[in-house]
């Protein structure tokens, strides 16, 4: 547990804007997103598909797929700005300081190389060790992620592992240079439900042991509730609400979060039908003016249709909603025109 007494967060994202220039105008996929992650902290990022969660993660590790690009804002890692680094410097950071785990373990590994070779090549790229030491380290890592018979299995090819085992290998690959931040993009979505819990527990344990901070992108609230310290709820490319996980789950503030929490079925309550939020998230080329959620919001009022809310401090959370922009929060604000 090495948490340096830093006076700045490990990762700081400020006003991030990700754009996709297309023939019919520019699509803004991530718009004005700001958050930070402290050393050793687990930040959950939830939201529907297309809310911009994965793109935010890709922007942080500098792997947005063209024509996607960072059009504004800044990303700081350990106080140093990284969103405008040259490719080669960013490459040295990837894998060494910031690891990544992707959604599909079946396709994340190169089918033509043994997992040992993929591990050692990553270790040798980032650490100053001999090939023999790299192999030893790789075997230790495989043992760490719970692969039985690691000494033997290291020389096996990806197709010789099951999905869950492959995701363990992917996690070993993400952690092999001891990064300080891991971006896990839906690491369990492609796995069987019975294996999902194991993988999440593993990720959580390893990161706690190494003091690694995690940005856990998922649309599974259960995973967030179990794992995250804080959670950011994204909607249509913006953060709707961000705060300590307990607050967001127990006392959600933003109507979208409230709807999201309401749609989780509860095992101890008999419900005639599953609660759901009416409507669907707007497409990127049809984001309504004002608050993007207002067409679906049961509490929307005039201001929501015109002005876009920025996150404001409510209790221990930040919420982007005009409902909370009242005199008890911001002195002198005009309420309910």
């Amino acid at each position: 547990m090495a948490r340096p007494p830093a006076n700045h967060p490990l990762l700081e994202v400020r006003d991030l804007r990700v754009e996709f220039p297309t023939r019919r105008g520019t699509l803004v996929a991530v718009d004005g997103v700001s958050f930070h992650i402290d050393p050793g902290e687990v930040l959950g990022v939830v939201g529907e598909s297309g809310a911009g969660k994965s793109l935010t993660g890709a922007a942080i590790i500098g792997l947005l797929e063209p024509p996607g690009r960072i059009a504004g804002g800044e990303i700081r890692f350990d106080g140093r700005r990284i969103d405008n680094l040259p490719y080669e410097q960013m490459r040295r950071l990837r894998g060494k300081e910031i690891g990544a785990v992707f959604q599909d373990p079946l396709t994340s590994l190169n089918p033509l190389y043994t997992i040992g070779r993929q591990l050692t090549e990553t270790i040798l790229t980032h650490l100053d060790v001999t090939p023999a030491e790299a192999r030893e380290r790789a075997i230790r890592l495989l043992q760490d992620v719970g692969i039985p018979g690691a000494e033997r299995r290291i020389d096996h090819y990806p197709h010789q592992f099951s999905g869950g085992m492959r995701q363990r290998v992917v996690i070993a690959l993400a952690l092999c240079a001891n990064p300080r931040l891991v971006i896990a993009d839906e690491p369990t979505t492609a796995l069987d439900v019975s294996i999902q819990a194991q993988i999440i527990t593993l990720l959580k344990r390893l990161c706690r042991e190494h003091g690694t901070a995690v940005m856990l992108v998922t649309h599974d609230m259960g995973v967030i509730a179990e794992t995250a310290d804080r959670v950011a709820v994204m909607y249509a490319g913006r953060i709707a609400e961000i705060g300590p996980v307990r607050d967001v789950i127990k006392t959600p503030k933003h109507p979208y979060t409230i709807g999201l929490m309401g749609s989780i079925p509860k095992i101890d309550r008999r419900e005639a039908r599953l609660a759901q939020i009416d409507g669907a998230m707007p497409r990127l080329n049809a984001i309504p003016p004002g608050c993007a959620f207002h067409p679906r919001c049961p509490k929307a009022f005039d201001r929501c249709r015109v002005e876009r809310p920025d996150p404001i401090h409510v209790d221990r959370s930040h919420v982007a909603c005009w409902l909370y922009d009242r005199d008890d929060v911001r002195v002198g604000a005009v309420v309910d025109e």
Partner: protein
Amino acid sequence: MIAFVIRRLIQSVLVMIVVAFVAFSLFTYVGDPISIMLGQDYTEADRARIAAELGLDRPFFVQFARFVANAVQGEFGLSYRLARPVDELIAERLPATLELSLVAAIFALVVGVPMGVYTGLNRDSWLSRVFMTVSLIGVSLPTFLIGILLIFVFAVHLGWLPSFGRGEVVHIGWWSTGLLTVSGLKALILPAITLGLFQMTLIMRLVRSEMLEVLRTDYIKFARARGLTNRAIHFGHALKNTLVPVITITGLQLGSIIAFSIITETVFQWPGMGLLFIQSVNFADIPVMAAYLCLIAFFFVVINLIVDLLYYVVDPRLRADRGVAGGHTG
């Protein structure tokens, strides 16, 4: 693995028997060898005597079996045109064709693969556009035209390279090689380019599209996320994953290069099998045609077998030995 090789060998033998059957049918259905041998005036008795001498009165399958037995020993009879054993003629011509084909194939690979990788990685650079445009010409222009153009420019106009023949050759046993003399090498350049150009552009376009495909995959994205160098990603991870289709096409193309060197050999008067074949067709020299057919089929079968074995070398999923793996997939 061994079972696979045995299975493929049996298949290969079957293919060869079918080809031999077709080659043998040439004798029976294209022209009549006895009337060719006897000329215009003969009696029925002459005919019967010759047929008996040559075994042509025997049942069809007995004749076929004898043809196959001879063919296996490289025995294809006498050329009608040159009155010499066909195997001798072929052995004389084979080195020229094989050398030309191999040099053309190597040229196609050595130039085509790097160009394909380059255009795949830098798809929007001006050089890629130049390569793609040139390759379009390479794919669409007929071989004989390219050969004649090259002769016109480099042999007639500039006078740098010879326009026909093989130059001086050195004999090593029965093999004659043009690779050891300056004039032999010079003579090889134009025909090899002519013959290899189409394959080169084909390989380049194939490597390019495979590279584009592979670069989009998750494992390349993940390799980038692991911070591997571009070199390791492009040449270690991406290129190797493009190899299976490239090996397939290159292998098949090598067969075609050998088989279709006919045109190039005709344009450059290259003393190889293709030229021999063309001359034999003109004279309905059936033994030579039959032998050529069998030999080309043999090359194709051998190359296919090698290609199949190369798959095993490249792709571990094919060598999967489930018993040893101990893991469960899926």
